[in-house]
């Protein structure tokens, strides 16, 4: 058991090193530009709107860049190993195929965590700088002004604090990470039987879209009364087992829009994610064990 974890760690670390040395983190530069631009370009909007732009663009960019890495990066993991025959040398050592696959996935999770963490740091840096600058501006405006103006400035400062130090952003980032983990898991599962990385990317993307439409279809068909035929119900049942319901991650948008989303709901979503990942990995291992290399 312990030996097994040791081998998984070795493979995960190697996967992370490979990605880092291929300069995946260069994507951070682009992210930094987006965060800064969205943070300071819209200065003539209201306070709340300015922060909403910054959060929207930054979390959105995190999500898109994360998706790119999760999709492209994971889709290439197995094909690269097979093409370079490195997988032969690894599996010729006392390593189980399940350990290899889990190690690869953990390496990808570590890469996504690293990227998300660094993007979050950039994001927090930008948002705190913006807070500082805006508060300074308020104080400057309030200097020597009448009591009414000063009271308004104080109100504004309170609002700036509240917007900039919104703890719900942590929820948004954690949920974004969970979504990326599911996409990476899907891509890994598909790549265990895919014959090319392109196929994996295309299929994963399709499943991702279906995952977004799934709950819409379910709502439309299943509440449609007795007219919905049996086949449609079966189809939807199978679909919801195979395809994760990606709409559960839409709460991210609600959080950014300013709605309160309780942590209990976030934890529910995370548990769903965890269970779905367990199913994904089990199926991936079953398929990969039978694969001819």
């Amino acid at each position, binding site marked *: 058991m312990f030996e097994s974890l040791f081998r998984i760690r070795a493979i995960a670390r*190697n996967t992370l090193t490979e990605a880092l040395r291929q300069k995946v983190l260069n994507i951070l530069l682009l992210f930094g530009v987006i965060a800064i631009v969205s943070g300071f370009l819209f200065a003539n909007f209201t306070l709340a709107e300015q922060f909403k732009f910054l959060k929207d663009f930054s979390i959105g960019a995190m999500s898109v860049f994360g998706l790119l890495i999760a999709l492209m990066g994971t889709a290439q993991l197995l094909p690269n190993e097979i093409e370079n025959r490195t997988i032969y040398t690894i599996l*010729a050592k*006392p390593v189980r195929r399940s350990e290899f696959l889990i190690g690869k996935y953990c390496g990808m999770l570590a890469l996504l965590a690293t990227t998300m963490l660094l993007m979050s740091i950039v994001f927090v840096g930008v948002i705190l700088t913006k807070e500082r600058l805006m508060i300074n501006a308020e104080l400057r405006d309030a200097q020597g002004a009448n009591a009414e103006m000063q009271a308004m400035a104080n109100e504004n400062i309170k609002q700036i604090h509240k917007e900039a130090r919104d703890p719900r952003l942590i929820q948004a980032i954690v949920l974004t990470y969970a979504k990326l983990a599911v996409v990476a898991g899907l891509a890994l599962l598909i790549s265990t039987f895919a014959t090319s990385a392109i196929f994996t990317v295309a299929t994963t993307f399709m499943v991702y879209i279906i995952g977004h439409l799934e709950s819409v279809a379910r709502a439309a068909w299943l509440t449609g009364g007795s007219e919905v035929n049996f086949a449609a119900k079966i189809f939807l049942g199978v679909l919801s087992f195979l395809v994760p319901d990606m709409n559960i991650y839409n709460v991210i948008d609600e959080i950014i829009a300013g709605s309160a989303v309780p942590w209990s709901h976030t934890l529910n979503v995370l548990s769903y994610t965890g269970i779905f990942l367990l199913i994904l990995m089990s199926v991936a291992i079953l398929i990969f064990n039978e694969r001819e290399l």
Partner: protein
Amino acid sequence: MSTPDSPKTDLAVEIRSLTKRYALPWKRKVLVAVDQLNLTVRRGEVFGLLGPNGSGKSTTLKMLLSLIKPSEGEAWIFGQPVDTIEARRTVGFLPENPYFYKFLNGDETLRFYGGLAGMQGIALDNKIEELIKLVGLENGRDRPLSAYSKGMLQRIGLAQALIHDPELLFLDEPTAGVDPIGSREIRDLIVRLRDMGKTVVFSSHLLEQVQEVADRVAIMSLGKKMVEGSLNDLLTVQDRTQFIAQDLSPAAQEEVRQLIEQRGGRNVSVSSPKLSLEQLFLKTVEYERAAQKPGVAKPTNER
């Protein structure tokens, strides 16, 4: 437990009726890559698996490593079924044209493979030190593998195969694409490994190389084993005799020939032994290399 049919633990490799078929549905045909192969490799011998491209050598090695599943038959490594993790603890493998991870340097590569075999700490450090010396890669430790030459890749490949001190080594075309000197070094290494008590199974289609190092060989063709046996037995032409002499004049040669014919020898031929092109190449290049070494260097006017 021990039936007459149970695998023998004193054999390094035991293969019984191993068969691999690939269905080609679009052609409605079945390709038989390996056909009812029976083979044994004894502990401590160097075994050469010969055959043209596509004769089933690599497929056989892959089945022995459980990278692909046999359609029929069974195989054991030191008595362990090949699809167990225990079998792979005793095996090192160098695939054909290996690439490894380009972004790791020599040291990191060996550290990674050592970790996979459950090694760590000082034991791993010492082993890496020892292997780098054994394969002569002192100048490649800090260089990324993307900057390695073909010969260096083959040597780091050999080192990673040896990292967990396996008793048995599978080398798939270990000298393919390597220049004659590098190829010679790999052959010397195989001999050294045998002297260290390892069993080596290697595949090749370069016959002369096999002849130099293998104790026993099997020749495969179209998935079937055609011949198996010790090189000495296979290559000695039983009803022929050969003399080699130095400084024998043509007249003396004629005398000897007549004597042989008088004593009943038939089909006598007289000729001078020839170097192989490889021997000539190595002799020439090694002379040049030795001359380049400091201390042996010829005086020169160049700066």
